[in-house]
């Protein structure tokens, strides 16, 4: 995988700002005082060993968890006590680590659900398939077909996702999030459980999404290698604390990061 050329994309201003987030579950501190920012159009990775708090961080941004302290703002707009639907309305989409697809539904239907927020017709118009509802469905269908082509899953269009191979289900998950045309895309371990080939495909899709649609991407990954190749900047978490932040090269050279990943005798 080639190290990406950062020059052709314009990394913009800070779009997502995470300030002093602390999250506790009863007595367990999942996150303590985490701050970092995400700039427009960049690929920002959050890495760390198991139990470092990566998924908790993502769930805070996504509105699944409400952190006890700190603030998260998107384009300067702070959101507190928002549920994931309200966060979705603000233009944040996500994928899931343990696939949360609608298993009984076809690939097409799964991705179409991602257009839900953009649907404007009401129940009664849909019920009688009145002109507007019909036109709307067709317009959204076109977008979705574009995404299906982009992700190279044309052959599976009508297949129930539960019957698809795991690697392809991951693509459908990505497709559903893309259908929301998000400003910020949160990817929760997009390459978990994949083989090398599938990982390369997924990396390519992530880079293409970033390049072609200019989507800002926040991604959590366990696998250091892949992340270092595709990310612009990396945050490293360990035991709920931030231990590193910077370009892949800086992070790779950081002594705390090395000891968190490899263990160290001097503790």
């Amino acid at each position, binding site marked *: 995988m080639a190290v990406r050329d950062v020059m052709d994309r314009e990394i913009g201003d800070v779009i997502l700002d995470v300030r002093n987030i602390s999250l506790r579950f009863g007595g367990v501190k999942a996150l303590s005082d985490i701050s970092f920012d995400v700039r427009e159009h960049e690929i920002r990775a959050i890495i760390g060993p198991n139990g470092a708090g990566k998924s908790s961080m993502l769930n805070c941004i996504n509105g699944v968890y409400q952190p006890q302290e700190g603030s998260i703002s998107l384009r300067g707009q702070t959101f507190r006590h928002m549920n994931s639907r309200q966060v979705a309305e603000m233009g944040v989409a996500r994928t899931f680590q343990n696939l949360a697809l609608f298993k009984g539904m076809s690939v097409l239907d799964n991705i179409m*659900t991602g257009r839900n927020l953009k649907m404007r017709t009401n129940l009664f118009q849909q019920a009688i*398939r009145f002109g507007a509802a019909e036109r709307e469905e067709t317009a959204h269908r076109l977008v979705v077909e574009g995404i299906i082509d982009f992700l190279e899953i044309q052959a599976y269009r009508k297949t129930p996702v539960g019957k698809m191979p795991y690697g392809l289900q991951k693509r459908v998950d990505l497709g559903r999030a893309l259908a929301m045309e998000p400003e910020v895309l949160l990817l929760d371990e997009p390459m978990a459980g994949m083989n090398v080939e599938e990982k390369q495909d997924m990396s390519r899709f992530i880079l293409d999404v970033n390049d072609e649609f200019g989507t800002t991407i926040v991604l959590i990954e366990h696998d250091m290698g892949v992340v270092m190749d595709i990310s612009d900047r990396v945050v490293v978490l360990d035991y709920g604390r931030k231990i590193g932040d910077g370009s892949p090269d800086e992070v790779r050279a950081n002594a705390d990061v090395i000891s968190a990943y490899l263990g160290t005798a001097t503790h």
Partner: protein
Amino acid sequence: MGSFLETLFGGLMVGMLYSLIALGFVLIYKASGVFNFAQGAMVLFAALAMARFAEWIPQLTGLNNKLIDNTIAFVLAALVMVVVAWLIQKLVLGRLVNQDGITLLMATLGITYFLEGAGQAIFGNSIYKIDIGMPKDPVFIFESTFPGGLLVNKEDLYAAVIAALLVAVLALFFQKTSTGRALRAVADDHQAAQSIGIPLDRIWVIVWAVAGIVALVAGVIWGSKLGVQFSLSLVALKALPVVILGGLTSIPGAIIGGLIIGVGEKLSEIYLGPMLGGGIEIWFAYVLALGFLLVRPQGLFGEKIIDRV
């Protein structure tokens, strides 16, 4: 052969009605994980509303066209069920999000008593008639294929057609509209549905409203057959074995389960009745459900629950 087919037909008709009530259970269970004990009370409430509206409208407006009166009464009763759905979500279930299944079940038990009480307080507690002009006379069908043909009740035939139409409309709604797609999405995975911006509370109101309208149709059909009275809410007890048989999460399961139980109880009454002393119809469904619980607890079409250890 003729009498066997007549029994079979009779069973299918009754089964169709069981299916309708079971459908209400399944819709709500699939979308929200709530086992709605109040489905029977909703049938009673809806039927009472329909019966009384049909009675009041000619009195108030002087309109004496049965078709128009019944249509207005039906629409009004449907609106009442939508409001009931909205109130249940706002006042009860909306406040119990993320609670245990047993808590939600108990809440619907409370809703049951409330609806039974409120329904009789608002609409009265005697026996009312719903007369939607279904012909009561029996007819012979298939006279050319069988000697003597088959004797079926015209009313049952109409009821079966209405029930089948309702199921077809629901299937279209679920498969072809974007709201239907959102409903299916919520049924599959709440968390994921919320993350793509599907509003759970609105979806649940829609599901309860749909279940309410299904209850209304079931109530109208049963009511026009047997009259609207308190015992109507007990019909729902017959739907419990249906959902056990068909699987709590399967819409086709509810329909096929209803038909199996309807046919099963009629056939067993005729063919096993003489041997076992009759009265089989009353307990047949429950015993069949018990057998299913022992052998295939997820039902015919339900999802098998596999826990990771």
